């Protein structure tokens, strides 16, 4: 080590620089987090929050209410209801649905709550990791069996 005093000065400078850089960075990060944290709410929580959650980015999670899915293929317009067992919220989405919606399926919608309707910009299907054997009569296989039949007859004709 040459010149202990100088070494100390150097160290002090270095510490100061680290503090300044770290502080700036921390401040930016805090600001960034503040604006970009998206709350994850159930329909019940969303409705309970009232005006606080109107027109701010939110993730709404719940189940697709049975029989509520309305899909307009021409306009690429999708409407359905999300429920959590207590409350339901009407969801509207432009664009095609992510593949297919099924009743009682877990879904997460990203978007904003406006005029009593949740305008969703992004729909995510919850990939449940539980491999329960589906109950009889519920298997997708059976649901689509019929479809295959129709399609095959189509192919023959």
């Amino acid at each position, binding site marked *: *080590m040459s010149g202990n005093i100088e070494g100390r000065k*150097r160290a002090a400078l270095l510490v100061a620089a680290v503090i300044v*850089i770290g502080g700036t*960075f921390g401040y*930016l*990060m805090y600001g*960034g*987090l503040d*604006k*970009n*944290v*998206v*709350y*994850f*709410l159930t329909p019940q929580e969303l409705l309970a929050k009232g005006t606080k959650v109107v027109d701010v*980015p939110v*993730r709404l999670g719940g189940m697709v209410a049975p029989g509520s899915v309305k*899909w307009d*293929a*021409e306009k*690429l317009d999708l409407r359905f209801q999300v429920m959590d067992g207590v409350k339901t919220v009407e969801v509207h989405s432009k*664009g*095609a*649905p*992510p*593949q*297919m919606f*099924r009743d009682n*399926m877990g879904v997460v919608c990203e978007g904003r709550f406006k005029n009593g309707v949740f305008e969703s910009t992004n729909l*995510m*299907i919850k*990939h*449940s*990791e539980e*491999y329960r*054997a*589906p109950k009889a009569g519920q*298997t*997708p*296989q059976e649901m*689509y069996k*019929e*479809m*295959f039949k*129709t*399609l*095959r007859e*189509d*192919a023959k004709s």
Partner: protein
Amino acid sequence: MTRLIGHSALLVALFVAALGVVLAPIGVKRARQDLVRAMYSATYAMFALVTAATFAMIYALVTHDFSVGYVAQVGSRATPLFYTIISLWGALEGSILFWAWVLTLLSALVVFWNRDREGALIPYTTMTMLSVSVFFLILLAGPADPFTLISPTPPDGPGPNPLLQNHILMGVHPPLLYLGYVGLTVPFAFAVGAMAAGEVATDDWIRLSRRWTLGAWAFLTAAIIAGMWWSYEVLGWGGYWAWDPVENASFMPWLTATAFLHSVMVQERRGMLKLWNLNLIVATFALTILGTFLTRSGVLSSVHAFGEGPIGMYFLVAIALTLLVSFALVAGNSEALASEGRLDGVAARETVFLLNNLMLTAFTFTVLVGTLFPIIAEAARGVKVSVGEPFFNKMTLPICASLLFLMGVGPALPWRRASKDVMRRQLVPPLIGAAIAAFAAIAIGARQVYAVLAFAFAAFALVANLREYWTGIKARMQLRNEDAMTALGRLVGANRRRYGGYVAHIGVIAVAVAITASSTFRKEYEATVKKGQVMDAGAFQMRLVEVYAREEPQRSRIAANVAVLKDGKEIGRLDPAMNFYPTSQQPIPTPAVRSRPWGDIYLNLMAFKQDGSDATLKVIVEPMVPWIWFGGAIICLGAIISMFPARRRSAAWVGAPVPADGRGVAPVPSAAGIMASNSLEGAD
């Protein structure tokens, strides 16, 4: 029977590994070479036993032995053989077993390549590897036991997660990831070994650490790129990176390892940053364990939800132990870690390395905060939040741009001090390149500031890195009368580390440009098309030929056959599909991609009528995407070039054949020779 073999092999392996950990300090302290050798043998035995257990599991999977817990969880008689085999890493227990296998393999390799070295470094390094192995073997013995008994034996199982049996890349990405991720344990073990042995002042361990980090880093790079590719090809949103916790978990150690690969050069050249480098190695390893904890404990829900296991606490304890032991050792070695050199001038390569490390650390920290924030918020305030992509993008874009810029400045500046003349000579050509690229980007319609900056800085870095080759080749051609190709070969041969690094830079530039271009110029089109009708997609049109169904043993598939047209002429067919698995509640989409070097046409089947009369298609036209994968390959190539020592006649090279005419590439030495060679790297 299979179950019993696998189970006992793991238990014995645990016992042997623990025995090795105990033998190490006794052997070193009492100078008992026989005990040290016994520990080395224990390492080999541990590897053999875990290999046996792994093969037992593969055998159980292939023979559909549903009495084995893990097989009952992920196996199915209908699953094709390839996906049955790779379901070894399809769920928690199997992936921990595979992890342990890679870890014990690397432990055995560390011993095999270094067993004849003198001193306490290798014994203590091996002890560290064994300790980490003990941790994973404890997991396999208890909370993540893959060989539990299922009674009565079920006739069939559910099969692997549908997402994991949908693409061949699932056979590629996990092994690469494990080799990279687990590989980062080795440099950590060398660091701990060096500190325990009191040998941090010597450069031996640093050289070993650097080479192992480079190898692991190459695998990790390939794994991350393969993961991006998988997500692009399978998930159907046309993207490849979403700041998902699982992606972040693999990315953070990559960032710190990248920082280490750069800052280690400062230590080797100038004797500075010793303490910093040690901390980077420790941080890298801690981040791999943290990443595993985040992805495997179910503490975060993510699209990669692999299921929840009871192993969260074990990992937290492991992280705490890692940090405690490391910091205690660092504190004990602080005398030896004092800096020798110091900064002479601001404009020098050292400064660029410091800035690069600062940026990479800030990058890591951002990703870490963004990833952990939801957990902290939930624990502290009981709210469920997610940190959106905007946060990550906003915070990391400036960092990425700076890194691109530094990637050009670093190679252009000399060590210690740069005169104004040198600066001008070196930096003006790249700046001209940057200006041209910026104008070109604006001309073709880039409007976001960061997109233009990214293109400009990428051009800057590209010119700077290519110039290094150019000036080197030119000098050799003039001084030694070599032709250009010979000059290139010898230039790289004599300075592999340096020129391999520049190759990696060029790969990173390719990836950066491809990501910027594909996200800036991406266009999406959606429409519902009737059979025989056409939808517009920018320069292309899509004609729905038919919707058809196909039944496969493990799934049913509904696909659309779509003709891709350009100016009314058909240029190809794409078949985007939806797959229905009996165990999954929703269909799994499979997009169809037409890849060309200039870009991709990405087609997704979104919905269809039951009678097959119409289908809703989503078309995404993205330029330059394939360059992400090419760029990844170039980065790995650079790492491979850098890994081997330069052409030097040193102990390990005596007897290496030199071609009669003195031309051609350096002979490839044996792996053991490389690892054991004490040869100094070529002077940069």
